[in-house]
């Protein structure tokens, strides 16, 4: 498929470069705007900053505490991920490797759950958590996140485990390895590609979720980043665009850094998720 680089290929490269500029322009605009004052912005929303003014970055901690919002999101997502994997890994192992009556039914039931939209279960679940005393509490958010992530997580990890030869686990059983020993020394290390992929998908989904935190959390200081941006940011954007944009920019550094570090894993994960 590969050809020498003739003018046609450089032409396509040029088109892709235009697209790359379009992909990056909003980010660059955020960076330049973050160094401008409100007065500068009001007189000309397009110009470059006159000086490298850090005022907007300093103002964040008192006006739009994205650092705390990032911390909240990371904490909720971390707890949700640990719970999700603790529940999903044994289930995936059983459904992929143990033959028992009802296994197929369980598997189909779990997979069918993937199609249920969050909005269809939000109201009853919200009222359930309120009744249990978890109004305005991260417990509700974590519960919903785990419940929504479990089916696809089990599906992915089970499909990885299913591809492993049965002999591996049988040999370990004959060697006298108990259930938890088999988990630790065989299922988790060999299922790791599936576990990593599912984790990346789940964290991306939780990071992007707006509906659940918006409904389940009311206090600004408990909010997740995405919902905080949507509520606090929206209140502020009408009065102070540069300050808001600075918040958006700082909040985006975390996923961008994670992406740069995890690029390879994300790409491998997509191969697994999209090509069976």
């Amino acid at each position: 498929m590969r050809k020498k680089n003739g003018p046609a290929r450089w032409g396509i490269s040029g088109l892709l470069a235009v697209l790359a500029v379009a992909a990056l322009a909003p980010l660059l605009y955020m960076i330049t705007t973050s160094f401008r004052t409100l007065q500068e912005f009001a007189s000309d929303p397009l110009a470059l900053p006159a000086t490298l003014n850090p005022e907007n970055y300093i103002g964040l901690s008192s006006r739009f505490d994205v650092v705390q919002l990032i911390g909240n999101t990371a904490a909720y997502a971390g707890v949700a991920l640990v719970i999700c994997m603790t529940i999903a890994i044994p289930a995936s192992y059983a459904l992929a490797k143990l033959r028992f009556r009802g296994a197929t039914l369980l598997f189909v039931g779990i997979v069918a759950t993937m199609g249920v939209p969050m909005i269809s279960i939000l109201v009853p679940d919200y009222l359930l958590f309120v009744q249990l005393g978890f109004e305005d509490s991260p417990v509700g958010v974590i519960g919903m996140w785990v419940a929504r992530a479990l089916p696809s997580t089990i599906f992915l990890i089970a499909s990885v485990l299913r591809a492993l030869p049965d002999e591996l686990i049988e040999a370990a059983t004959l060697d006298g390895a108990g259930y938890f020993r088999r988990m630790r020394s065989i299922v988790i290390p060999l299922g790791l590609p599936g576990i990593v992929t599912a984790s990346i998908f789940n964290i991306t989904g939780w990071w992007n979720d707006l509906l659940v935190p918006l409904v389940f959390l009311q206090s600004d200081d408990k909010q997740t980043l995405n919902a905080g941006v949507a509520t606090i940011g929206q209140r502020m954007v009408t009065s102070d665009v540069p300050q808001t944009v600075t918040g958006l920019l700082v909040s985006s550094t975390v996923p961008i850094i994670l992406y740069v570090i995890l690029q390879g894993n994300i790409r491998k994960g997509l191969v697994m998720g999209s090509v069976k």
Partner: protein
Amino acid sequence: MNALTVPPTAVASATVQRRRRRLRARRAALVGWLSCTPAAIVILVLVWFGVASTIQHSFTNWNGFSADWVGMKNYVDIFASGDFFERFRTNLVFLASLPVLLVFCVSVAVVIYDHIPGWRFFRSVYYIPTVLSSAVVGMIVAVLFAPRGAINTFLGRVGLESLAQDWLGRTDTALGVLLMAFFWQSLGQGVLVFLAGLSTISPEIIEAASVDGAGWWRRLFTILLPLLAPTSAYFLLTNVVYVLVDLFSLVYVTTQGGPGGTTTPVDYTIYLKAFQEGNLGAASALSVVLLVIVFACSWFQLRLIDRIGE
């Protein structure tokens, strides 16, 4: 085998073996069910209880405290009020844009796969908008397209004042801006998905074809694109579900469903009915309709994927 020729010890060991096998099967069943129990409980309580409750309440005028049975009234309201398609219009506009997004992503993926000059750089850069959260994307877009924002200022600067307008204040341009944000955020993901699909095609097939004298376009249409069919099906399935049930965050931040509720996708409508109007019965009925549509779409597309896979 003739029973008479089997020595008695072998018979005994066969029964022992059978008993041992049955014991092992029972143990496997116990371990299997115990391993699945936590997952099953969470899914039953938080997902299927929710679905059942939503279905039940869709026949009532539930407001969070009291719920009186009203029969099919909520469903009649949805289908007979004449604005059924209006409720789904935003979703349908996004749905109609998916083939364009597909062609766009496949084209970019194919030229990157072809190692066009700078392909590594492009592959990385296109993904960056994808990692931004939908609320951030929506907010940036709203800032850029504000009446006195960067886009209108730019148009004025280059002598196109006539094009400058209140982008988010008109239905058609607001939908256009939302679609642009959606494309901006989806391109990177789409390109990576198709590159993943392309990476599974063995180079030998392509080499064999070029030895046979097939040119670049020939190879594109006879080898690469057909082999990408399953990936395309996966891409469409995930995106169809996305535009049906997940547009809330982008729209909530960018246009708040405006102007006049004309860009409100159906999941946002349910949210408004439930949490602003407190009309939980009507919200439940609309949720059930959405649930049925999503299941029907997924089922149809999974069958399609199976067909392609054969």
